């Protein structure tokens, strides 16, 4: 049997985006995967099936996506960093339990390698059509953290970040790739253990009296310490609104308090959650704001356009949700036009428009039938507005 | 089980007066009360635990008599 052992490798490797997710997750300490295969995300499951048993971790192929989502939540409660991966239609099936994970505050990462929808759509073509599904695919208002890599290297980096954020905020995190990034092979540099910052969930103090343990304790940072199953706390968890003890009481005050805490634990810490890169010069009149695979064309276009003295800059979101409202508002105050290329009919542009609130013109470039947006298209629009 | 074991309303407040215990008592120790079951005649109790084991509300407990 030819097996690949996960161990420090030569640092420069040719890696597929989907495999980079596997490498990133393992580097961040993930020990559990459960899921159900689907194009174009199956390589992630396959990668974990290969790698996890080698480090004593567990790979579980479940009967469907719903079960896969349930199993990773269970594994996380049992103390393991856990991840699942799917694509649009399967992501829809995971939503109910994703909401449950938010409610009971379980760290877990959900990867969605997007393909063109609606429905079965074009299973092997790229899309960014699940940006809004990520934010709103469930009942209720709850926030979610979502990151979107634009390269194989970023797939590796942001997977590590996703795991860390989920651990830090006791919160499910979604990683949005798309078919192009998932299947792209690029040369990337893997990091050594020392180079990687890892965050592990806060646990109850070891001297914590188990009788007084509050699994949803109100702490200063609004993030309750989390006890592994089997560590003696014998605590209760429920998808009903619950008080600090974890028990539902049916009271509206309790629900209100919890809704607010869930919201604030993220919104008090946006600086730790929202990542973006930008290159905007003080005299740029237009900016191309993008994320994921669309960012590749965006940056490429701006780089060439600048050689031709066009006054354009770029802004690349790595964190999609919560949306970088402030930074984008600032951007809108600076430039006249923001161009938002997306592989959908215009999803995140809605947030950009809201943040811009009329201060800058916001124009979308949309490809929603499986083609990448090409630099020429963005260039043409840039020339038009500049 | 030691002779002299007898039923006790260990958690009387929890009783919902469903009557199941009454129906399984071989010696008619228990009877319906206004809000909860009552012990009619403790002396008849043979400590068989039928009632304790079936009570859905954890009300009853068979204890040695001196605990009662």
């Amino acid at each position, binding site marked *: *049997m030819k*097996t690949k*052992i996960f161990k420090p490798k030569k640092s420069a490797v040719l890696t597929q985006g989907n495999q980079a997710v596997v490498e990133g997750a393992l580097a961040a300490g993930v020990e*559990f995967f*459960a899921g159900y295969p689907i194009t174009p995300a199956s390589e992630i499951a396959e990668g974990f099936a290969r790698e996890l*048993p*080698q480090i*004593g971790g*567990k790979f*579980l192929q*479940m*009967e*469907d996506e*719903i*079960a*896969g989502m*349930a*199993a*990773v*939540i*269970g*594994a*996380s*409660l*049992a*103390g*393991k960093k*856990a991840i699942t991966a799917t694509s649009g239609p399967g992501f829809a099936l995971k939503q*109910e*339990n994703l909401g*449950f994970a938010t409610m009971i505050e379980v760290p877990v990462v959900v990867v969605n390698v997007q393909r063109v929808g609606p429905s079965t759509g074009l299973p092997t073509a790229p899309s960014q059509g699940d940006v809004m599904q990520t934010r709103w695919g469930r009942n209720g208002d709850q926030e979610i953290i979502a990151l979107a890599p634009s390269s194989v290297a970023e797939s590796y980096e942001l997977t590590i970040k996703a795991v860390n954020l989920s651990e830090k905020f006791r919160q499910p995190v979604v990683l949005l790739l798309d078919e192009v990034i998932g299947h792209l092979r690029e040369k990337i540099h893997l990091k050594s253990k020392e180079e990687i910052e890892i965050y592990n969930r806060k646990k109850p103090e070891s001297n914590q009296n188990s009788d007084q343990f509050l699994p949803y304790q109100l702490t200063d940072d609004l993030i309750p310490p989390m006890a*592994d*199953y*089997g560590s*003696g706390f*014998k*605590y*209760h*968890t*429920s*998808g009903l609104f619950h008080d600090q003890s974890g028990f*539902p009481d049916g009271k509206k005050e309790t629900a209100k308090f919890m809704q607010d805490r869930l919201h604030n634990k993220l919104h008090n810490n946006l600086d730790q959650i929202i990542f973006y890169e930008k290159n905007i010069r003080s005299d740029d009149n237009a900016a191309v704001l993008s994320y994921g695979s669309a960012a590749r064309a965006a940056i490429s276009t701006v780089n060439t356009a600048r050689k031709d003295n066009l006054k354009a800059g770029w802004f690349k979101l790595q964190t999609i949700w919560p949306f970088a409202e402030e930074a984008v508002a600032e951007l809108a105050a600076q430039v006249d036009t923001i161009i938002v290329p997306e592989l959908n009919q215009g999803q995140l542009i809605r947030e950009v428009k809201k943040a811009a609130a009329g201060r800058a013109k916001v124009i979308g470039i949309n490809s929603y039938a499986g083609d990448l947006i090409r630099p020429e298209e963005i260039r043409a629009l840039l020339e038009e507005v500049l | 089980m030691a002779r002299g074991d007898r039923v006790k309303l260990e*958690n009387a*407040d*929890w009783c*919902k*007066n*469903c*009557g*199941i215990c*009454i*129906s399984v008592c071989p010696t008619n120790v228990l009877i319906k009360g206004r809000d909860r079951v009552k012990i009619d005649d403790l002396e008849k109790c043979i400590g068989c635990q039928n009632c*304790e*084991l*079936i*009570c*859905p*509300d*954890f009300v009853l*407990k068979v204890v040695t008599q001196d605990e009662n």
Partner: protein
Amino acid sequence: MDFEKYLRIDKLPHIWCPGCGHGTILNSFIRAFAESGLDQDKTVVISGIGCSGRATGYLNFDTLHTTHGRAIAFAAGVKMANPGLNVVVMTGDGDGSAIGGNHLIHAARRNIDLTVILFNNQIYGMTGGQFSPMTPTGDQATTAPYGNIDQNFDLAKLVEGAGGGFIARGATHDPRQLKKIYLAALKHKGFSFVESFSQCPVSYGRQNKAGDAVEMLKKQQEDTVSFKKWQELSFEEKQGKYPLGILKEVENPESEYTESYQKIIKKLKKEEAF
């Protein structure tokens, strides 16, 4: 019985209706658990949504009240992540055999070491009496006002068909047997399934004019017979009768899922060592 040890006393009395069989199931379960010698701190109880789903709120273990129908899938994740934990699932007939039917059969197929206790009151209790896959044909339900035309599952057969290794059926009218079965199920290495007949005097009983809990228990007793006796019955006599007891027990701890996985890990470690 030391209730304080296994129950969350401060949460009692529970919300179940007077005479609801679910309480008797809990009662039998904690006795079985006490006798099992298993480590309470290393035991996780997981439930879905329904009246039965509320069971976890009263049990003094690590407990998880999940989404409707998915308890077994959560449990599989817990068990795989830490095979050192004892994992018990408490589910309703709707939770476990309607929306959750698929997870049930797949867990049975994989032979993963879970103890699944299905509270079968033959109705969706929590939502007010719609028929479930366990409601007998002809019965009344709020969604079967002219009598249920669905055939009900024989869950023991279903789980056996799925490959389950430990299959049993108990009933609240006989808590002694119920306890014994739970004990055996807890001790069984591999997937174990216990269908537990429970009476729902409110959501099932009222519409079916089944009387109060006491009458329902009497009926339950009439409709059931020990597995041993049942085997001696003629085909005709078996109709409408359900055997109680351990219906199947295959000792094959070798094929238990987490063990099989562990073997792969061990094998790879050895390969690496070379």
